[in-house]
């Protein structure tokens, strides 16, 4: 556990970046620090590994005061990932990943082997090992950055906007992979971001900071969306928080309708429906076509792909979005293997939402209460 106890940082020019901050980041969980620029989130993060020294207050790591530890040793036990990855341009990918184990004097062949494993684990082809950072895309560099932070298997990881400099598609891939990795590794992670959506997606616990380094609210994401403590937090978590909170609600059994489907390559002519769903040979939905307009055998370019597909076991947000985005107004629901199980209409999802329990509302005095 990482604990801040009355931590203040005042810079020589008099600005107070962090103002008597007290918080606890539980072991094995992701604690996100989120807030607008100037809220002191990065300063707070860097005080943990003493890249910045607190003016007053203490930060403890599993009960040990970090101010009493040797800085270089403290840092070697803490993984660190930053926005532009901060890879060493003059070292190969493999050498970058091996940095901390080598600093710790670990065996060279053993380190090499482990670094190669880590590269695969973060989704990089081992062929990248011999390349230099400048030969990689931004997303690939960031993966190397994560592998480098994990190389010495530190119990704690600090991540400073690690995914914000890549495009949205890559960002989502990196976030998903990061969550899978964390599911396996269970590190104690402090994650800084200015993006509330990222905070809510990744955090087990979200800490909202105000300009001047004041703690505004600390709670589990679902609780935060349901109970913003003041106008600042309400404003910061955004207008569509009601919709986003559905990300934390499991989909109950929905009244699914069987959907008429045709296979790719078949003709839709004569089908008596406004829209018909096209599936592949494994019954995976591919897209919608309008029988009245689709002449001849169905080809890929004739598919309407605007509709999203939701998993029956996923959150309600997916089911609702699937119904709202579908050109036929019928949301496509699949099982875990991606095979079609049926379709659902928006009003049916809404009925399910109205009937669902909202455990995050149960006890408003208990911040951090886990969501469904």
């Amino acid at each position: 556990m990482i604990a801040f106890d009355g931590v203040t940082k005042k810079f020589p020019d008099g600005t107070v970046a962090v103002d008597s901050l007290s918080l606890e980041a539980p072991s094995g969980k992701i604690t996100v620090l989120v807030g607008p620029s100037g809220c002191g989130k990065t300063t707070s993060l860097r005080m943990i590994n003493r890249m910045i020294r607190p003016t007053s207050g203490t930060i403890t790591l599993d009960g040990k005061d970090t101010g009493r530890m040797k800085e270089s040793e403290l840092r070697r036990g803490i993984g660190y990932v930053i926005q532009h990855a901060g890879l060493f341009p003059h070292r190969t990918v493999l050498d970058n990943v091996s940095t901390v184990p080598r600093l710790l004097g670990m065996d060279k062949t053993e380190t090499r082997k482990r670094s190669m494993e880590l590269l695969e684990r973060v989704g990089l082809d081992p062929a990248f090992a011999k390349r230099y950072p400048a030969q990689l895309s931004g997303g690939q560099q960031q993966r190397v950055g994560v592998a480098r932070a994990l190389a010495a298997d530190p119990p704690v990881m600090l991540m400073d906007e690690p995914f914000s400099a890549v495009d949205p598609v890559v960002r989502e891939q990196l976030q998903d992979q990061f969550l899978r990795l964390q599911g396996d590794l269970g590190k104690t992670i402090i994650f800084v971001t200015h993006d509330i959506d990222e905070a809510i997606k990744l955090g087990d616990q979200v800490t909202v900071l105000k300009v001047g380094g004041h703690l505004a609210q600390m709670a589990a994401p679902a609780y935060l969306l349901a109970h913003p403590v003041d106008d600042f937090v309400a404003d910061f978590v955004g207008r569509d928080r009601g919709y986003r909170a559905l990300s934390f609600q499991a989909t109950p059994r929905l009244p699914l309708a069987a959907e008429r489907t045709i296979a790719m390559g078949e003709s839709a002519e004569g089908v008596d429906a406004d829209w018909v769903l096209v599936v592949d040979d494994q019954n995976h939905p591919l897209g919608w076509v309008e029988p009245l307009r689709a002449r001849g055998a169905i080809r890929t370019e004739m598919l309407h792909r605007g509709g999203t597909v939701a998993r029956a076991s996923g959150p309600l947000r997916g089911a609702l979005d699937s119904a709202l985005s579908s050109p036929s107004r019928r949301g496509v629901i699949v099982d875990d293997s991606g095979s079609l199980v049926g379709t659902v209409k928006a009003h049916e999802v809404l009925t399910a939402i109205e009937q669902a329990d909202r455990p995050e509302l149960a006890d408003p005095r208990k911040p951090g209460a886990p969501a469904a």
Partner: protein
Amino acid sequence: MTWFFDHLDDVLSRGLQHAYLAGVPLVIGLLIALPLGWLARRYKFLYAPFTAGFGLLYTIPSLALFVILPGFLGIPILDPVNVLVAMTIYTVALLVRTVADGLGAVPDHVQQAATAMGYTRVKRFFAIELPLAVPVISAGMRVAAVSNVSIVSVGTILGINQLGLFFSDGFNRDFYDPLFVGIAACIVLALLFDAVIIVLTRLFTPWLRATGGRA
């Protein structure tokens, strides 16, 4: 040309001496400029006085330096150490700013990452900052090398053995063959120094070749 072949031994021995007087200070000067440049970068208030102050040393006329130094050092004016020290001063004058700027060109996020990985200040300098500053320092070394080759020939006036003696030979006898040979030898020497620095730089910067200069 016949003059050149007749005096090949002279050209070679003076050339070697010239290379020694210009080259050794290049190495010593770099070793002195590295910590000075690092200090200028480490402590912001030192940057301006260090870069400007050491840079000014370059404006001391070489002849004056050759004459003054023996007094300070307690050595005879013809002692090659006199020239070595003077050339070292010029090298430091050119390299302090180069080293400071080269170290400063290491991207901020790379520096931060190195610190966060747990590099001590000294290790970080040798493992991260210095290797990344090599291209900039190398450019400064090439300037200093050419400058040293050129300034060493001023030692002619003191009668110090080096290629410049061909200039006085030619001038005094109104016979231009040695003059041209001396100039050509100086140019060849400067080019050799340049080539050595380029080769060393390539050896120390494999990543620049792999990435076509991006880094």
